[in-house]
């Protein structure tokens, strides 16, 4: 009895994720992809996109919904990258300089975005969406008419003669920046797994020695890891992963961000995020500077998104100057929602799972549509539809549940409104 109830609530709570899993399986079965080919592509896509998706978590916790304005962070990264290319700093140094340069630019942009979003509380999502579009216009002005014209660019291939502004595509290969981060340390899949398993066991051991973990749990962790490492030795499984090489540094950077997302929630600032996210009025009454907290959340998100975009671009090997940032917000937002996050609650796990599922569908849907309907365009449109649809469904579901919940709270809300009006 109890068990069936749990199942039901599990199903309703994770409806979107489950639907997506089924959809992915369905599309996969028609797509004609081999498992090993698929896994290879997915590793690529995951390492490339996960960072940006993870950058969405803090604003969600701070109650600002999905920050579609992370496109602006991506733009900051692209501006930084342009200057690194102008200065012709090659390879890893170039990447690091771009990352460093992204920090002040994205902080500044994030500050502006945060200021504006504080002006439209309750409408942050549509606000950040439109703001992203608006910023695209400013970005075009910057890249078409300021860089290369008012501020001359000397490096080769940045400006194409006879056309205005920066070239459409900027190639990172001449500067050895393609795979700058990925290629520092690559391991085959099984070795990467051993490293991760080793780290995990070491972590569990430290926790045990610090008496935060009992012996049973430690044994369980060790056994799980050993079993996984053993499972990879099975020839069939080994075949799936045979050709795959894991960019360890990129993986570690992503893991670091996950740790950061958890760690920051344990600090005073993180508690403030949470308090503001749950109820701005109460947080205000508790002496938290609501506007400042929201501003910091957006700045974090913008800077992280900028770095995420750098990771994305170095993996792609070339920068689509006018298009690379445009869909960042949409895809990242859809991905995190697919993973089971809502617009008020999100975790690292949901972000990673969502990223995996969303990009899996991205991969298999066009192939499946081509095989079934003979027209890859259907699959293309389908995945665009899914991106928008997932967000729409998530918004509807959230608005629906809060609408139902809201009724008895109306009076409290009104009182709160009055209180803040008076201050």
């Amino acid at each position: 009895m109890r068990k069936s109830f749990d199942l039901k609530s599990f199903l309703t709570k994770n409806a979107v994720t489950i639907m997506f899993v089924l959809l992915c399986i369905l599309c996969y079965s028609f797509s004609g992809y081999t498992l090993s080919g698929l896994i290879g592509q997915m590793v690529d896509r995951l390492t490339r996109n996960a960072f940006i998706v993870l950058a969405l978590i803090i604003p969600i916790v701070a109650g600002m919904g999905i920050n579609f304005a992370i496109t602006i962070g991506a733009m900051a990264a692209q501006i930084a990258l342009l200057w690194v290319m102008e200065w012709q700093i090659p390879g890893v140094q170039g990447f690091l300089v771009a990352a460093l340069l992204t920090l002040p630019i994205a902080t500044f942009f994030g500050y502006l975005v945060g200021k504006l979003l504080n002006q439209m509380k309750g409408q942050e999502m549509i606000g950040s969406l439109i703001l992203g579009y608006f910023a695209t216009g400013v970005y075009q002005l910057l890249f078409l008419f300021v860089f290369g014209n008012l501020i001359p660019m000397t490096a080769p291939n940045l400006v194409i003669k006879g056309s205005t502004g920066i070239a459409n595509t900027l190639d990172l290969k001449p500067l050895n920046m393609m795979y700058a981060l990925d290629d520092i340390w690559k391991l085959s899949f099984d070795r990467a797994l051993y490293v991760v398993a080793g780290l995990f066991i070491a972590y569990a051991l430290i926790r045990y020695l610090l008496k935060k973990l009992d012996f049973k749990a430690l044994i369980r962790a060790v056994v799980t890891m050993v079993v996984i490492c053993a499972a990879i030795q099975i020839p069939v499984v080994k075949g799936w992963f045979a050709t795959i090489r894991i960019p360890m540094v990129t993986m570690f950077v992503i893991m670091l961000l996950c740790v950061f997302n958890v760690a920051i929630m344990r600090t005073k600032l993180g508690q403030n995020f949470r308090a503001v996210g749950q109820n701005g009025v109460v947080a205000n009454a508790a002496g938290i500077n609501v506007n400042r907290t929201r501003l910091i959340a957006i700045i974090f998100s913008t800077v992280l998104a900028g770095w995420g975009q750098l990771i994305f671009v170095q993996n792609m090997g070339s920068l689509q100057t006018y298009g690379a940032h445009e869909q960042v917000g949409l895809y990242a937002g859809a991905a995190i929602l697919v993973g089971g996050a809502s617009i008020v609650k999100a975790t690292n796990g949901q972000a990673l799972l969502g990223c995996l599922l969303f990009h899996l569908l991205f991969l298999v849907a066009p192939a499946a549509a081509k095989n079934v309907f003979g027209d890859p365009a259907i699959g293309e449109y389908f995945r665009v539809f899914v991106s928008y649809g997932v967000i729409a469904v998530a918004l509807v579901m959230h608005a629906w549940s809060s609408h139902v919940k809201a009724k008895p709270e109306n009076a409290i809300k009104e009182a709160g409104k009055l209180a803040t009006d008076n201050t």
Partner: protein
Amino acid sequence: MIKSIAARIVACVIAVIAVALIGMGVFGTSQRTSPQGAALIENMRNHALVNATTGEGAVDSFVSAAQQRARAETKGQGMDAMKKAVAAAEAEVRASMSNMKVDLDGLDTAPLSTATDALIAARKDYSNAEEAAMQAYVQDMIEKGEVEGSAAPADQAEQAPVAVDGAGEAGMSDLEMPSQSDEPKVDMSGFTATPEMDKMQGIVNERFEDVSAALVSIQPLLDRDAMAQLEGAINQLVYQPGDRFETEYDRYVEAGGESAIPNDLMTARIIRYGDDLITVGIGLIILALLVLFYRKIVNAMGFPRMIIGGFFILLCIVAILYDLSIADLLSNTIVRMGMNSIMVLAMVPGIQSGISLNLGLPIGIVGGLLGGLLCIELGYSGLPGFVFAILVGIVIAAVLGYLYGLLLNRLKGSEMAVTTYVGFSIVSLMCIVWLVMPFNSLVLRWPMGGGLRQTVSLEPAFQFILDRFLAFKIGGITIPTGLLLFMGLCCFLMWLFTRSKTGVAMQAVGNNPRFAEATGISVDKMRIIGTMLSTILGAVGILVYSQSFGFIQLYTHPRTLGLVAASAILIGGATTGRARISQVLIGTFLFQGVLTLGMPVANALVPGSTIAETMRILISNGIILYALTKSGGDSRA
């Protein structure tokens, strides 16, 4: 206080500058026909003529004339001798030309002037005769029925639409309207000169002889052959059809005529740019008024409307300065206003019933598109086809709008984000539907697989049906009477509705839902009515838009239309909570005016750039952001 004093001082300074500019401009334009202007032009013309007979290009024609002569003389004496003679002739001419510098100051230019005047008169007569003859020819051909008809706009390449947008949001590039010229095109290749024209040409030739005689008397080196070489250039220089002071002046400047009048250069330039000076002066006066009455104007119109209005005026001024055809631009603006207005009107019931900006407008648009497609598929055309399309569109939109209204009723307070994404999802869902739609008409679908076309021509159905109805021209501006009447009708009906009992109830719900509920109005029902109306107007709007545009645009095109309509009404002065019909008209006019003027002006300023598209993105999204900050500031802590 200090601020207002400073503003007044600034305004006064600007006004003084403006008056000075206008004064200069009026003086300049009035001088164009005066003796002084004529003298200046004549002086420049003479100089330009002499330049043309001694300058770089002239030297080359002399050389080639001399070479030809040498070749003729040495004919039959073998290649080497010929080559030598040619080279020698060239060297000789170049040497003699190198020190050929004519100083007009000491010479009597009267004979040249009179001869040139006569030549100009003759050329004028000739080109008038030519024009008349051509018109007669065209008339003749039309009567014979040999007309090609208005050129059918080139269809997109015949291939399936695989280019799914990755970029998307910036993709509304219908700024370039397909040409709507009514002028029938007649093949002019059969046209030959009439006897009268030949006679005129004879006079022109005679007059040219006089001019060349005068030139030869000034410049003894010139001879008949050289003059024959230069005839075309000189004729082009002295007169071109439709000549005015400005065009003549520019031509002579190009030919180096400005050095003829070193003392009067300033005056000459004032005369040349007199009209531009007046335009700038008027612009400055407007600016001065803006500075002076800044506060009052902002209070009366609101900040965004003032900015956009000012921008519109600025664009007009720049357009005049760049000699763009204001009449054409205004005609375009009116058409674009008409075609967009219904979709903007669709925002009104949404805002009034309290669902805020209906960014889910694409839902209604899809209904309208389906109506239009059905009309083509069933082969209806003309007015019945248009009515049929509208009716089908209304029915589909009403059903969709009802469901959409039910959804929105459960989402009170967070409509905008939801509606945007619901609209986006519907558009991308319809992209798939367009691909698999089982239509048969070849107007609609690609000949080989691949679903419906990206753009479907409405030529066989109801292209321009409203635009052309009773259309007429006033001073170069084409008035699309039918379109404006339809727009007026829709606005009037909407106005009637807001005065009706239901309309008043709906507005009450939008203004204060709780009060409305207390008085016994069903809030949910009124919101559904508002949503349905908005959706239906969206369907009608896209049909009006398409008939004016000439094509139905499928796939991702409808996605941004909701945002465009929303920004238009916000520019008109509406907020996310209040809207009037007058704001629809003002907003659509300003927004479309800025877009229509923006593109040619931007192209004049920075040729070949996409700055107009960038501008559209900035204006349309900027105004929505502005409105959002206002609504957020009002209703929330």
